[in-house]
């Protein structure tokens, strides 16, 4: 599949006399294929918004290359801007204009037909409230308006930063359906979000960023598989047999952690091996459960941002990857 969005070695450094130098982006890479819903994840301050702003020409990069729809950006941004719809960070609109006025002014600036305004208002569920001033809107309604403004151009690439922020559960589900429908219609969607359950549900692929560098990349299933530890939980009919079972499994080369009522096994290729070893010892299982990883646990592991009791993690306290990215890209390189 051709790449709609390519970023290679993107660097952005902020220099301040008081706070010194901070690398917001430190050789960041990203690759998004056409027609995908791509999740863009990272802890607060990891460089997500800086990446999106840089990609959209709002921030000047210090190094690296970017392209959108095959055009190098920011140089060719004026040529591709009409095909890219975006919202960056929280939605911001002039509070005294109505939603319709807001969209109408954007449509005028972008030479979009007026009829498209009604279409997008309908899509995001704001048709009935379109005449009201934006200052009367809730955060969720502003979010819907922001998505409407991004959809106004009927873009080929849609970039949404935290689109579910402030939405009620019904709104989140509607947004999820909308994203899927848009992707099915051929639109490529890049979605930045902290609601990892949502990302896992609707995204085809993800990029995880930490401290300005990519720490994971690829289809969601592959990223999960690569970070699955092969852990298995074992329970026996008799709890008193656990030490015996632990000894037998350890002898067979399995890493065992003993808990009061179960064993946790690591490095198990095939769960059938466990049943065979224990059966040979006359020990019988009441539970043998592979531990599935979800995107949240992978994210917390990769970014080292899992909460630790008694500690207060600070922003920027996450993992730095100095070597090659731990998960291999599924697509080709720059310009492939």
């Amino acid at each position, binding site marked *: 599949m051709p790449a709609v969005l390519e970023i290679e070695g993107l660097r952005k450094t902020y220099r301040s006399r008081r706070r010194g130098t901070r690398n917001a982006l430190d050789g960041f890479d990203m690759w998004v294929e056409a027609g995908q819903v791509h999740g863009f994840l990272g802890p607060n301050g990891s460089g997500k918004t800086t990446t999106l*702003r840089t990609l959209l020409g709002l*921030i000047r990069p210090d190094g690296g290359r970017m392209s959108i729809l095959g055009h190098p950006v*920011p140089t060719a941004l*004026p040529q591709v*801007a009409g095909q890219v719809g975006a919202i960056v960070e929280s939605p911001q*609109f*002039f509070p005294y204009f109505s939603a319709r006025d807001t969209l109408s002014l*954007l449509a*005028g600036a972008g030479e979009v037909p007026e009829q498209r305004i009604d279409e997008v208002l309908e899509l995001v569920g704001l048709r009935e409230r379109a005449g009201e001033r934006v200052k009367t809107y809730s955060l969720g309604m502003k979010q819907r308006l922001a998505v409407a403004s991004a959809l106004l151009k009927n873009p080929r690439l849609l970039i949404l930063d935290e689109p579910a922020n402030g939405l009620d559960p019904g709104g989140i589900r509607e947004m999820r359906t909308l994203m899927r429908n848009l992707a099915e219609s051929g639109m490529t969607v890049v979605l930045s979000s902290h609601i990892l359950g949502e990302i896992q549900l609707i995204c085809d692929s993800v990029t995880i960023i930490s401290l300005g560098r990519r720490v994971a990349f690829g289809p969601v299933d592959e990223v999960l598989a690569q970070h699955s530890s092969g852990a298995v939980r074992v329970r026996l009919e008799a709890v008193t047999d656990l030490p015996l079972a632990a000894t037998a499994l350890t002898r067979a080369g399995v890493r065992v952690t003993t808990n009061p009522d179960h064993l946790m096994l690591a490095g198990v290729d095939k769960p059938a091996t466990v049943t065979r070893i224990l059966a040979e010892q006359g020990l019988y299982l009441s539970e043998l459960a592979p531990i599935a990883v979800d995107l949240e646990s992978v994210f917390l592991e990769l970014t080292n941002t899992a909460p630790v009791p008694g500690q207060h993690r600070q922003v920027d306290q996450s993992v730095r990857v100095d070597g090659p990215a731990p998960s291999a890209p599924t697509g080709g390189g720059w310009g492939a």
Partner: protein
Amino acid sequence: MSLFRTELRRLGKRRFTRWTTAAGLLVLLLIVAGLFVSNQKIGPEQRAEARRAADGHYRDQVRWVEQERADCERAKAAGEQVDYYPVDCAEITPPAREAIEDQWFLPSTFDFRDGADGMMIPLAGILALIGFVVGASFVGAEWSTGGMMNLLLWRPRRLTVLLTKLAAVLTGLLALAVPATALWFGSLWLIATFRGSTERVTSGVWQSLLLTGVRGMVLALVAATLGFALASLGRRTATALGGVIAVMVVGQIGIGILLDAAQVRFAEAWLLPTYAYTWMAKSIKLEDWRSCSASYTGECNPTTLELTWQHSSALFTAAIVLCLGAALWAMRRRDIA
């Protein structure tokens, strides 16, 4: 072109633009109403009344002089040493009747030929004020509400966006200033017709007035450009407004006091309002009364410095190049976060 039309629409839709314009026009309306109420047409009746008032004033003067002369003679006879009386009390004489002119007692009247030119200054001042605050707010509010960022996602050419916005502000201001100036002329003409005189208004007078009107509009455009540029530089409307207040309070009043204390010659030449006034008046003559011991009897003439509209235009050009250049440079270079 679509961006320009859209920005004009945006300008017209903004409440601040509408309220500021309405407030400015209301002030102009009040000035016209005040001018109308405070002036009268001069006819035989008013002249006769003025003559009666002058006669009455003359009689009062005669009565007062006689009283003073009597007091003087009484004081001299009593041998009092009163230094405010002359040596010879006969020197206390009433003024000649001709010295008290009837025209001093005529009611205020609006002479179009003499008064219209000066009345262009409040119009230009109000238009400049509207231009400055609306220009500053138009771009300042866009920055502070995130509208500029939204627009740049649609139109990534930053300088084009900023200059188009400026063009929309200036066009909108001209669309207000041209009819406002025409209405102002019309109102002054009507006041002169009903409450004054429209005599001696030649084509030359009209030409001069027209040029003053044009200079007033240019002043408003300059103010709008400066407000726009300052707010864009600071990304806040308050930057422009605060900057102007700072310049006026600290720069102008402070500099004025400092220059006066240092007895600098032609201190007004260092003050910005002098140049705005010079622009409207075409030229002004500053006088240095410290240059010699000048007196009313005319021992010598003070040294003068003539400022012309060319000096003002050079200053305006420099201010625009500096502020707008900095705003464009910042727009091109700075990150938009």
